[in-house]
């Protein structure tokens, strides 16, 4: 038995590190246990071929909450930016690319009417995103068994809604549950613009543009702008550097981080946690255990469903958490050439989503556990801004691929080559000749992401961001305010409110909840 900690925190992902830092600052003795050799979780840099590194999961930083960044003083702990305020460019096979930066769009034969409509749409959705941001900054209120804190949050949100004015309020209530496809059709004509925005609404999700609740997904992303991120940003050294900076900040606050220390179980007795047991058998006792792992991993693997009541076990088993997103990494011997794209534009965010039906068809496949034959892509060439990620003169291309199933018929090994080839061909339609530049490649399927980064189902958000699994429903009823099933057991990861994306809010909110409950925790 190791000496007593106040808090044992499972997983040094970004939310875990944020949570640990706040807890340590509040005077708790915190031990963070991480299975991998590096901290950061999904905020990781991965050397996928000798000399070639890339952000393994998330590749853009565009949602980190400013308070979290400030409180953790990340820039003092080594965080550097390779590029900020990047634009999104929706690629066109014929080179008529459409560029979006904030509320401004150009190219892609956009009409003046569409540009104006987009400005208006952007302003309106920013107002909606602000309201959502407020909801994200607090724990999700309970509705019936609400206490004072919950009622205050509800009143704040209610007032925020009312203050928006009648038109905005009724419009928000109308669109919040519906799909991007319809809202896009209501607002715009330009197919590329509609494709780009609808892809934003469903990245990392198991949804198509026609899936109701994708408007919520879009606003969810737009919250990043409310948090001060004008466009996408790229971290120097890859996302792993963010993880390192957070770990450094945590250590500075007094957090002890143990790497290569996989937790085998979260131990419980008579309705409360007692500590954790490591894979090597070491037992660590702690009155509070915080899990940064996804809810399914936490309850199914670490706590064990047999230690939960049946209703809770059932809810855990019913969490929708099947990923549909893959990641392709290409090591290139030179900078690729995209038709109609100037070299300076290659460092922007490049998107292949020519129209909404294209994405919808890509999504159709994954519904039946097949991969998209014409996938939608979110591409980054990080070496444009950060040469250190590849050998001199060489480059790295990283693409988020929608959609790839978690478990295709026959298993991934039967399809890995074909699918990699297919995605490369898809890119090559926009960047002819890129095939010849490829030195090495790596495809991370949802199954790979699950294995390497511990995300059940390979789902980026630790659980689908559907309306049935967000806000006061996240991750599942009975576990919505970070504490779940046992006294002293908390969730602080993307599976908890508000959800995935490198925001840091789940970690911060969880820490606040733990601190507030104090000894009662």
């Amino acid at each position, binding site marked *: 038995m190791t000496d007593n900690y106040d808090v044992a925190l499972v997983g040094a992902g970004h939310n875990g590190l944020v949570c640990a830092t706040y807890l340590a600052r509040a005077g708790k003795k915190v031990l963070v246990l991480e299975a991998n050799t590096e901290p950061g979780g999904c905020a990781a840099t991965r050397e996928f071929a000798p000399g070639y590194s890339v952000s393994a999961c998330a590749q853009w930083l565009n949602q980190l909450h400013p308070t979290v960044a400030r409180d953790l003083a990340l820039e003092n702990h080594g965080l550097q930016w390779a590029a900020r305020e990047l634009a999104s460019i929706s690629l066109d096979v014929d080179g008529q690319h459409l560029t979006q930066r904030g509320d401004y769009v150009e190219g892609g034969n956009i009409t003046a009417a569409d540009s104006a409509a987009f400005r208006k749409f952007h302003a309106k959705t920013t107002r909606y995103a602000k309201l959502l941001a407020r909801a994200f900054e607090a724990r999700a209120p309970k509705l019936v068994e609400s206490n004072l804190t919950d009622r205050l949050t509800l009143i704040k949100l209610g007032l925020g809604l009312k203050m928006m004015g009648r038109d905005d309020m*009724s419009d928000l209530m109308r669109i919040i*549950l519906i799909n991007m496809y*319809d809202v896009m059709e209501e607002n715009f004509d330009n197919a590329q613009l509609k494709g780009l925005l609808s892809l934003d609404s469903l990245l990392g999700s198991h949804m198509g543009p026609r899936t109701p609740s994708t408007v919520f997904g879009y606003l969810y992303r737009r919250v990043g702008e409310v948090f001060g991120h004008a466009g996408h940003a790229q971290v120097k050294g890859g996302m792993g550097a963010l993880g390192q900076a957070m770990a450094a900040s945590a250590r500075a606050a007094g957090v002890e981080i143990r790497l290569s220390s996989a937790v085998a179980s979260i131990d419980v007795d008579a309705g409360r946690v007692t500590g954790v047991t490591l894979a090597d058998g070491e037992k660590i006792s702690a009155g509070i255990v915080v899990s940064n792992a996804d809810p399914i991993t936490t309850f199914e693997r670490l706590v064990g469903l047999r230690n939960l009541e049946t209703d809770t076990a059932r809810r855990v088993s019913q969490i929708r958490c099947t990923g549909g997103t893959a990641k392709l990494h290409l090591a290139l011997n030179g900078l690729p050439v995209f038709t109609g794209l100037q070299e300076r534009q290659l460092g922007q965010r490049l998107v292949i989503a020519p129209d909404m039906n294209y994405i919808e068809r890509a999504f159709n496949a994954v519904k039946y556990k097949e991969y998209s034959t014409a996938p939608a892509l979110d591409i980054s060439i990080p070496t444009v801004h950060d040469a250190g990620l590849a050998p001199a003169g060489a480059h790295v291309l990283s693409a988020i691929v929608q959609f790839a199933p978690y478990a295709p018929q026959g298993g991934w090994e039967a399809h890995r080559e074909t699918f990699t080839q297919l995605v490369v061909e898809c890119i090559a339609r926009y960047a002819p000749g890129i095939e010849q530049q490829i030195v090495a490649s790596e495809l991370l399927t949802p199954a790979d992401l699950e294995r390497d980064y511990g995300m059940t189902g390979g789902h980026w958000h630790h659980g689908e961001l559907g309306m049935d699994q967000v806000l006061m*429903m996240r991750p599942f009823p009975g576990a919505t305010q970070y504490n779940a099933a046992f006294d002293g057991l908390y969730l602080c990861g993307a599976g908890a409110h508000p959800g995935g994306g490198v925001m840091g809010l789940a970690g911060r909110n969880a820490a606040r909840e733990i601190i507030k409950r104090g000894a009662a925790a």
Partner: protein
Amino acid sequence: MKKYDAIVIGAGHNGLTNAAYLAKAGLDVAVLERNSYIGGATVSRELYKDWTYTNCSYVCSLLRPEIARDLELPRHGLQVVPYGGGVTFKRDGDYYGNYYDHNRQYREMSRHSKRDANAYERYTADVMKQTRLIRPFLLKRPPDPTSLKLRDLRDLADFAGSFMEMGERGLADTLKFWTKSVGDYLCEYFETDVIKAHLGGSGIIGTALGVFSPGTAYVLLHHYMGDVDGNVGSWGVARGGMGAVSGALAKSFQAFGGEIICDADVDRIVVRGGKATGVALKNGDEYHADVVVSNLDPKRTFLDVMDVQDLPAEVVSKAENFKIRGSSGKLNIALDGLPTFHGLDKSSPLMLGDMHFSDSLERIERAYDDWKDGTWSKDPYVDMLIPTQTDPSMAPPGKHMMTVFVQYAPPKINGGEWTDADKDGFEKSVIDQIAAHSPDFKDLILHCETRTPREIEAEVGLTEGNIFQGELTFDQLLFNRPFPGYAQYRGPVQGMYMCGSGTHPGGGVMAAPGANAAREILHDLRKPSTVPGGYADD
């Protein structure tokens, strides 16, 4: 030209209900109907000699019993007969059937899965909880959450109150139910494909969504919240076809002194000085009235029979953005005898109910993919009924009438209009699907009427042939139906109202929109309401 107190445009069931309640309050009311017959989509027609086709809506459950009783519809000739049964045929030759008797239903389900058979009991209880929550609001106008009026605040408090009563856990179940796809919802209970497919169909009927589209669990509820004689969730046929419903409503209306004018094709609602003053017909006739009520769907109402000049710009854009998607078609077939279906005895009570051939959710979802791609489903989902097994009045003895509701059929084929060749292709995909399970089916066909969204729109006037006058998705329910700010039956012009299925609580031959609208009209006219309140659920 004669001046009426009120004119109702469209003699569908909601128009007639609305008119009946206004006439009952002593108003001088006329209903104008474009066709030479009344009923709208609640109609029985002899399209083949000696056969009565219930050729649009075909079954009855949602019709509010309070209204049927209050307007004395039974005395005016309406008899609703429950039918029971129902079956989904599997590709492997087996089937899954639906029995009325609880224990027999359990045994039938147990043939497929004992676990599912038991889970069905939990499922039924859980769905009943949601049904009980929504039913009291069917005969009420939806509160406006943006309003600060006393009446709205009170209604809103009522509404919130019934949610709170469910408790934290119950409320979570409700939120889950209202936001989930019917497919995901059913997967939380059942393991057997055919059972999920049989139950899941109710989540998409009349809706341009797939079984895995969030929000469809609510559509399922919409099909469960009716009752026949207090048996919630049970369905029946109207003796003589659905025309019996509109026929009885018409007689009730006429008994209150109302007037029905057929072949009266309304060109526009006349607005003078910001007030509705009457309607002008295509033939030039004009009728005057202080109150004009549209039973047409919101698109037709605001974009067709009203002048853009008379409307606030936001109403025009809201009407343009209103989702009223054609997603279904219909085949009405006269049969020389009762067809034989593989594996099922002709005398089986399962034959009396709704029959389907989609034995997995995936097949239904793939049918939806075709719709998204702008074509009819090659392997469609059908909801098929042979009402002449229950109703002896609709076909000669020994002969039968079959109604086949088909999903999906898009309003346009790849962006273009339906052609006759498309219609034939659509018809063939349905007939072939049925024939694959019934060896003698094709030989028994005497006559087949095929209705794509094109025909439904042209004849009944439902935009895109949408049977609910607008999608039953959350952006278009309750205080959002048809659109925010106009969900209390009042139009944007004084004296102009809406009473169709495009208003709360939506479609499905409920007659509630018509009754609720009448209550609001009478409220504005400062007349005592003639509309009954809903029965309290026990």
